[in-house]
């Protein structure tokens, strides 16, 4: 199916790296491999960030019936350069009562933990930086460490609104992390491994022309939807951006950050969005595998980035379309709807695995999931009656 040329183009970055590393003595080669991989990640993903920022501003602008930025460069494509220069030359204001060390460290910790997540994503065939046996667990662990950075930012600014935004952000991230984890467990159950390259290889098969991606199965579609919703809430993206909403809480935990530190938070948020899209692509959309069996001659890294861009466009689309969710609606949604639905999806996945091949398992699983969606949804959309507010203080 592949010619030698197609296989070489597919592995071109690996071949380039091996050629560069072959100039070094054998003892230094593993170290050089790692360094080249890290430099590649640090080069590629922030450039993607720049592109995504332009896409987002133009996209959300068009949804709101206006042009986005169109002054800097053709069609506004050089806008990120202007943003970068602005962020660098702005004055870096640190409040006098703020905790200077923690205030300085918070954006760095955020950026570090977000970059660590990229180490396990299989960007192409054989193109992951580290093939860990528990790669998925590593990614989720790094996402958990991100919450700490958010808290550090909010507390160190010594500002009521900042702290309130940080507490809300941490509560939101903790709740949606459970949903995120459980929706990925379905994929681990079916593919039998927590290592991301192996999950992609399990999806790299074709029945006829169509690929065996997990999103094309009923349990996979449900898990993918849960994952996308939880991913949006984990990275504090609209419509779940109450912690950083400009109109509610004056930008929450990044109020007291100006200039380049704010830019680092911005970069961290968008990089987290890209890495969450990358993980979603790997788990549900087949990673680097081609969408049709006659398209496998195209390079694997091209398909990975195409799918990640598709996911990012969906993120931007949802941001432009949906209004912000209120904090209590957000928490109710996570604990009372998403979590039971995800647990039910786990059961349905097990049912899928243990019923044999055939049309029966499709019908049964789809019926259970649709019935659960409708029932849980109708329970949750009952009209609520709010009484007078009661305050409780810890003494």
């Amino acid at each position, binding site marked *: 199916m592949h010619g030698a040329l197609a296989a070489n183009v597919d592995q071109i970055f690996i071949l380039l790296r091996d050629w560069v590393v072959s100039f070094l003595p054998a003892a230094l080669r593993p170290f050089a491999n790692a360094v080249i991989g890290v430099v590649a990640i640090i080069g590629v993903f922030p450039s993607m960030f720049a592109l995504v920022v332009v896409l987002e501003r133009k996209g959300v602008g068009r949804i709101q019936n206006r042009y986005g930025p169109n002054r800097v460069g053709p069609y506004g494509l050089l806008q990120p350069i202007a943003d970068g220069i602005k962020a660098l030359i702005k004055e870096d204001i640190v409040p006098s009562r703020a*905790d200077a060390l*923690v205030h300085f460290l918070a954006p760095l910790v955020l950026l570090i933990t977000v970059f660590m997540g990229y180490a396990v994503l299989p960007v192409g065939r054989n193109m992951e930086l580290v093939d*860990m*046996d*528990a790669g998925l*667990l*590593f990614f*989720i*662990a*790094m*996402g*958990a*460490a991100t*919450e*700490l950075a958010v*808290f*550090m930012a909010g*507390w160190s600014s010594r500002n009521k609104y900042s*702290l309130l935004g940080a*507490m809300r952000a*941490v509560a939101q991230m*903790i709740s949606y*992390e459970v949903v995120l984890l459980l929706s990925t467990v379905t994929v681990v159950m079916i593919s039998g*491994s*927590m290592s991301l390259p192996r999950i992609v290889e399990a999806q790299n098969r074709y029945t006829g022309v169509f690929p065996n991606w997990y999103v094309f199965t009923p349990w996979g579609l449900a898990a993918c939807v849960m994952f996308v919703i939880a991913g949006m809430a984990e990275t504090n993206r609209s419509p779940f951006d109450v912690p950083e909403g400009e109109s509610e809480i004056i930008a929450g935990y990044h109020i007291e950050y100006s200039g380049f530190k704010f830019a680092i938070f911005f970069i961290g948020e968008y990089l987290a969005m890209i890495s969450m899209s990358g993980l979603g692509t790997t788990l549900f959309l087949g990673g680097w595998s081609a969408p049709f069996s006659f398209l496998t001659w195209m390079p694997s890294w091209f398909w990975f980035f195409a799918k990640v861009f598709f996911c990012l466009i969906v993120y931007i689309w949802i941001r432009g379309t949906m209004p912000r969710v209120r904090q209590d609606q957000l928490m109710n949604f996570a604990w009372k709807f998403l979590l039971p639905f995800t647990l039910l999806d786990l059961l349905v996945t097990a049912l899928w695995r243990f019923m044999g091949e055939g049309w029966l398992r499709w019908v049964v699983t789809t019926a259970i999931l649709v019935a659960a969606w409708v029932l849980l949804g109708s329970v949750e959309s009952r009209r609520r009656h709010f009484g007078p507010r*009661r305050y*409780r203080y*810890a003494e």
Partner: protein
Amino acid sequence: MSPVFYLISAITLAGSLAAMLLQRTVHCALAVTVAFAGLALLFLSLDAEFAGLVQILIYIGAVAILVIFAILLTRSAGAPRGEVFSPHWKAGVAIAAVLFVVLGGALLRSIAVLPHETAAPAVTMRDIGNAIVGRYVLPLEIMALLLTAATIGGVIIAVLEIGGEK
């Protein structure tokens, strides 16, 4: 002992010392988080992947956040602690010395008691999974009961407060 081990130990010890000696309680909580991270790195350097990653996920992602929330909600967050060293430090040193002797003795004796254990057993995720649902399924079920009891307890505490105010 490799340089990586010394580096990770330095990080862990620095975090633990800072957790004892710093003035503000929230800084101590953040220093303890650094000590947790050092422990996770130690696990990872010994090829115990699952233990290391779960240490990051649970200790840094949940326990540290819990400690910080507890500090923040009890109004001791802003004020410095005052006296860092307690007046009963001699008793503390004695207890720490006894604990050190017991643990160190147990570790050094273990080489004599278990001579056939190899240095680094290769345990994969699959083995851990099989062990959890195979040999250790009773503790798993008891943990599920414990979690359910904790959740119900939390709900009861919250509901009772609403009922008490009426």
